[in-house]
């Protein structure tokens, strides 16, 4: 009753005021200011990227002014294009290699860790759970420095040295929290009833895992694999600190070390564009795959989008 009274007073006041004020008081008016602000933000955040992609097709050597369309920096140039420059070439494959290895190692470890920690109650598992979450928030530089010391100065682990192995070990540790956190969140929403039902029907624990839990967890595992893979493509600090020479330097480090302190030329833009395409392909696969795996469940496109971006 009180709410209707309030509504009446609002309508009566709007009725007497000017049309501008009425527009302002309309509770369901579209927030044009907010929408305009959002558009401005989107333009600010995406237009520079579009221009950088455009420069990768530049005919000239400049990264600042556009001189016409060409494939020069992709394969036209016999020396500096990404097709012909062995360093840029190698960086591309190095990134893919690191992403693949890290995903293949981190996801199984993280998923098993999540399952075990979530069900095994006690001080030890919960303190390791805290350590895992800590590894998610500690600044990457501090962690990278600690690993650098391990691989260069520590008697036992020094044998690995800097390079591919150090990078993969570091990246796995840095990324293992993705599957561990996402799978644990999913386990909480699944609950225990499926597990109990399958045990009631006579399954062993291993069978329950394989036939019941893993299928239920598939979308979560898949989303975390996508996150790890694309996270490694984007990663810079760990690979920068732990790479040792040109043969194990991925794309992000090449872009950084070539660009800082000078003009890297449009070949770098071309390399970055390849990186961008790679990430978008991974995101696309992630989105479609997630939709496919959650068919029949109440998951819409927006939820799938946020899930593969790790914000569910």
């Amino acid at each position, binding site marked *: 009753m009180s709410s209707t009274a309030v509504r009446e007073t609002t309508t009566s006041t709007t009725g007497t005021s000017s049309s501008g004020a009425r527009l302002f008081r309309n509770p369901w008016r579209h927030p044009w200011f907010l929408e305009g602000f959002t558009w401005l933000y989107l333009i600010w955040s995406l237009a520079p990227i579009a221009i950088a992609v455009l420069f990768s097709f530049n005919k000239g050597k400049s990264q600042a002014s556009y001189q016409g369309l060409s494939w020069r920096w992709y394969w036209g140039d016999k020396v500096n294009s990404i097709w012909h420059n062995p360093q840029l070439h190698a960086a591309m494959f190095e990134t893919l290699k690191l992403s693949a290895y890290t995903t293949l190692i981190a996801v199984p470890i993280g998923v098993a860790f999540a399952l075990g920690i979530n069900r095994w109650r006690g001080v030890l*598992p919960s303190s390791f759970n805290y*350590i895992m979450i800590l590894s998610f928030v500690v600044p990457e530089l501090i962690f990278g420095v600690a690993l650098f010391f391990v691989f260069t100065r520590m008697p036992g682990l020094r044998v690995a040295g800097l390079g591919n192995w150090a990078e993969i070990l570091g990246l796995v540790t840095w990324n293992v929290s993705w599957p561990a956190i996402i799978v644990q969140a999913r386990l909480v929403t699944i609950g225990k009833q499926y597990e109990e039902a399958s045990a009631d029907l006579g399954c062993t624990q291993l069978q329950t895992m394989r036939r019941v839990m893993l299928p239920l967890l598939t979308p979560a595992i898949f989303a975390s694999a996508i996150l790890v893979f694309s996270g490694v493509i984007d990663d810079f600090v760990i690979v920068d600190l732990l790479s040792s020479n040109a043969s194990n330097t991925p794309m992000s480090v090449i872009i950084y070390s070539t660009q800082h302190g000078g003009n890297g030329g449009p070949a770098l833009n071309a390399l970055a564009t390849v990186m961008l395409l790679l990430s978008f392909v991974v995101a696309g696969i992630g989105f479609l795959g997630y939709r496919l795996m959650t068919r029949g469940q109440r998951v819409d496109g927006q939820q799938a989008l946020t899930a593969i971006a790790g914000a569910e």
Partner: protein
Amino acid sequence: MAHLPPEQLEHVPDPAARKRARKRAGERKPYQPNRGFWILLAAPGMIWLLILFVVPFYAMLAIGEGKLDRQTESPVAVYAPWQWSSANLGNVWRDLFGSGAFVGVIAWRTIWYVVVASLLSLVIAYPAAYFVARFAGRRKGFFLVLLIAPFWISYMMRMLAWIDLLQTNGYINKVLSFVGLGSPDWLGGHWYTVILGLVYGYIPYLILVLYAGLDRIDPSLIEAGRDLGLSRARTFARVTLPLSRQPILTGMLITVLPMLGDYYTNQLLSGAPNTSMIGNLIEGQLATPSAGQGAILSLIVLLVLLVPMIYYVIQTNRAAQAAS
């Protein structure tokens, strides 16, 4: 002992007989998973984290508290705490707070860069996330794709994009000189360029957290606020803002923590010593004889950040428990 009722089964003394009785009664064992199975599953991850996450921090401490090999000019780790020397700690302390302290200046600069950049990020990200979560309506999917897109674009690519735009003969200056504002040297070592880079670099992560949090607010709560006679602004202040406190805090942590360890943004966008941050200092000392001081500095940063990090860990855990 033909067909005992289930509640009496437990009182059968002989285990084998109890089992037989159970079978006869057609009752199955209650679900009691074997704990060893869970331990086996968790063990690889635990060992991995122990060796490659816990041990490295101890190694860092051992280097920081260790000594310097005068011949090879390289730091030597000392693992036994009773043999630790505080030479590096003393040096770092003097650099931080003593007269002629150059680290102190860098530390303060880092703090104010990070504070300004993270607040700016929040002011920009919140309205955009709020609009997409609340008012985008049917176009929500479309806006969401655009909002999330930068998350999939590599950090280096995003920095490269601004380097291209901000060159002295770049597009920004072309526009500026067209309207008669001259052509400033953006990349010549200025704090505002570095802050722009930090905001641009870390805002995608913040906006994602904010969107997820704001999207979860039940619209009926906001409608209730409006129905009870609050104006739009007051509904926002009394309902939406308090409900978005948690995402704001998480989002700020997720941007502030990596910003504090950033050493590449200012290298790319300025490269001048007058904009260097604590990250540059740590990274620059890594392969030098003063690596031990870098280790101590890293540990000090870690110690300062321990409170917000633990807060984050507890919040994450509490959220997981609340959901179950």
